[in-house]
């Protein structure tokens, strides 16, 4: 294990323990709920980026993976109400399998065709869920969250801690991928798939790996959703917001490194949370719209790229 990797893992562990300690100190529930949403976007953006940023396949169907995780959990809650970790694991499994499925699509579909297929997949799945009355169908269903949970003073704090841990884990996964041969192989696919194949990169295996991991992480992020909103219905679980945000956040942060989606999700997610409770109602859309247009036009490599450029210029001046 390299020194860098060891340090990274230590930092990750410290962050998880830290977020637990926060829950013992802070009372104000609002911060937990707001932070939950932001952290959820950290997971989604990071997961999206593993496929979209590293291999260059743009997934428009984030909402489908997220909602499959959420609805797997709903189905389980309706049958035997298992503990949350079971929901996380099964939600991840189901969405991971779905990811594996779309992985095979990449055999035939490149570029924007792949994106359209993921969009169509989301519509089809939403229709299926809408017609499945066991999980509430189109009418939706209310989910009672557990009254209490050991070690935490209430369930909101527990959900926050879970999502914080998931965020740390998913960023760590992205980091590990990026620093390994897998990440370099993915980058080769992104740059030129044919060339990568000629060079002996196992492109199918890598693509399947990327779609599966990315899908599974999105599903895991969706699993606790029904406990968070208490009332789940297909239109909100499959909301276009998830697809747009999970794509916009890495774009704004920068798509080539693990840091980009993290920075993007924290900044944009926080801005959205603040906008919801401060600015006038249309502002939220306006923020996302103008950030998207502004960043892709003026800072095409995202914030991370922008910082890199500024630093390079400063370094140049010093020299």
């Amino acid at each position, binding site marked *: 294990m390299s020194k860098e990797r060891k340090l990274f893992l230590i930092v990750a562990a410290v962050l998880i323990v830290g977020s637990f300690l926060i829950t013992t100190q802070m009372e104000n529930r609002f911060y937990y709920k707001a932070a939950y949403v932001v952290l959820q976007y950290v997971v989604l953006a990071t997961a999206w980026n593993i496929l979209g940023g590293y291999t260059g396949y743009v997934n428009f169907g984030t909402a489908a993976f997220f909602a499959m995780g959420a609805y797997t959990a709903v189905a389980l809650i309706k049958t035997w109400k298992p503990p949350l970790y079971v929901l996380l694991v099964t939600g991840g499994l189901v969405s991971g399998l779905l990811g594996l499925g779309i992985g095979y699509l990449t055999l035939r579909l490149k570029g*924007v065709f792949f994106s*359209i*297929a993921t969009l*169509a997949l989301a*519509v089809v799945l939403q229709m299926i869920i809408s017609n499945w009355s066991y999980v509430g169908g189109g009418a939706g269903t209310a989910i009672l969250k557990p009254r209490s949970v050991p070690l935490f003073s209430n369930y909101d704090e527990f959900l926050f801690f879970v999502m914080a841990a998931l965020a740390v884990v998913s960023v760590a996964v992205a980091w590990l991928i990026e620093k390994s041969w897998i990440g370099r192989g993915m980058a080769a696919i992104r740059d030129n798939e044919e060339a990568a194949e000629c060079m002996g990169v196992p492109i199918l295996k890598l693509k399947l790996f990327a779609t599966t991991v990315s899908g599974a992480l999105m599903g895991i992020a969706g699993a606790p959703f029904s406990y968070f909103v208490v009332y789940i219905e297909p239109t909100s679980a499959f909301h276009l917001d998830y697809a*747009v945000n999970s794509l*916009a956040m890495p774009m704004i942060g920068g798509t080539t490194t693990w840091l980009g989606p993290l920075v993007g999700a924290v900044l944009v997610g926080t801005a959205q949370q603040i906008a919801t409770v401060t600015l006038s109602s249309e502002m939220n859309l306006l923020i996302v719209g*103008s950030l998207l247009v502004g960043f892709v*036009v003026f800072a095409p490599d995202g914030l991370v790229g922008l910082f890199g450029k500024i630093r390079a210029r400063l370094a140049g001046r010093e020299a």
Partner: protein
Amino acid sequence: MLSIEFLLNALIAGLLLGGFYAAMSAGLSLSFGLLDVVNIAHPAFIIFGSYLTFYVNEHFGFDPILAGLVFAVPSYFLGVAVYRIYYNCFEKTGAESLRGLVFFFGLFFLIEVILIITYGVDYRLVRAFYIGKSTSIGSVGIAYRLFVPFLVGGMLAAVLYLFLTKTFFGRAIMGVAQDSLAVQLMGVDPIRIKTVAFGIGIATAVIAGSLLIIIGPVEPTIGREYIGRVFAVTVLGGLGSMTGTLVGGLILGVAESFTSSFFGPSWALAVSFGILLICLAVRPSGLFGR
């Protein structure tokens, strides 16, 4: 229940709807199908057209179709401006694929916000003498509310088809789509051609918007419901083929109508997108693909 009459009516309803879908997708077929500009904001431009139509219909009693045609002209220049920005920021630097997509997504939201701020979030409708009336041929009923958009949609596709195949400019657009370099060597500026084509695409979106508001009420964010459908039509028929777009629209319309009539409307969308998924998996180039 399963009579010939019923079947025929379902077919006609599907074809009428399909013609309208083709009108919605014609512009996208130009920009995305021929020029590889993935204009995901296309439905937003359609809704934008609906609101322009609503405004002049409400205040001056303009006929919606006429309004759509009139507004198509300034919208052409709007399209030109959008493409200029797109070209300078993305295509020129060869970064169009992902970032261009995000750019159009952002544009989508900006158009929605502009509509919300100027018109409010309420449903808007138009009035015209043909809305609410219908005729029948034998036992087949035809509502003018759907027949007019079908007719205009069909004409739009036909005009575009003739334009692309018979005029110099149209052929140049096809040329750019096939081999940009060759066209350049022949002394035509491909960027200028693409600008014109994109402008025409936006102009048709605005016309389609006037058709949409004839069929039913419109609110600022309703465009999201059509992202999937317009792309489905464009891909289904085959990229870059106007005939394909028309056929794709009709297939989607008939599929939705048949599912609604025979199995229940709750599966209609799933069936049409299922068709798209299968089409993508089996024949990604579409039915009439180049």
